């Protein structure tokens, strides 16, 4: 029988994988995809918990996470265009004018 723990395990694995991706990938768009994956693992956690706890709050949170993810993606694309216009690249290795 698949319980809420299984769902949460999948979500936790997804989250860990996407965090790894954020840390290792070099292309800003791929990093951004990893971040979206992070937020989606959060969504999975919330939906399974909401159903497990019989509490609607978790599902409401998912809507807002989705809206935030969309807004972040839109702003992110815009910033990447601005960056690309200046630097002709979106590789994070090129984010180097300001030293870390």
């Amino acid at each position, binding site marked *: 029988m698949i319980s809420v723990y299984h769902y949460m395990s999948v979500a936790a694995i997804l989250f860990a994988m996407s965090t790894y991706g954020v840390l290792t990938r070099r292309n800003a768009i791929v990093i951004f995809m990893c971040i979206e994956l992070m937020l989606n693992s959060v969504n999975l956690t919330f939906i399974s918990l909401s159903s497990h706890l019989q509490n609607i709050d978790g599902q409401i949170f998912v*809507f807002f996470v989705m*809206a935030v993810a*969309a807004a972040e993606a*839109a702003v992110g694309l815009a910033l990447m265009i601005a960056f690309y216009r200046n630097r002709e690249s979106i590789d994070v290795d090129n984010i180097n004018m300001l030293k870390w």
Partner: protein
Amino acid sequence: MLDSYLPILTLIIIAVGFSFGAAILSRLVGEKKPSTVKLAPYECGMPPVGSARERFSIKFYIIAMLFIVFDIEVVFMYPWAVMFKSLGLFGFIEMGVFILILLVGYAYVWKKGALEWE
């Protein structure tokens, strides 16, 4: 309860089986005579022009950006639609305000010329 999913399962099995079967069968019994023309990418029968790795116009990104935002806002209408009757007039007004705010954003985008392709 699970019985009702049986047709879907059957459909999935047939679909996957057919596509894999066709691919494997053609690989096994098909005749292979590769030539330059055959190996070229297929572009609706036209001779291919340039590389497929061309840069997209920046306009695609702007449209994508706008699409993401307006697309996701629709998400908020689903719960409202489900609960439409019990929310009544108040919910209707709230959703009206929400859509009005989206319209304001749309008007802004339009005025700024982000929707013009040329």
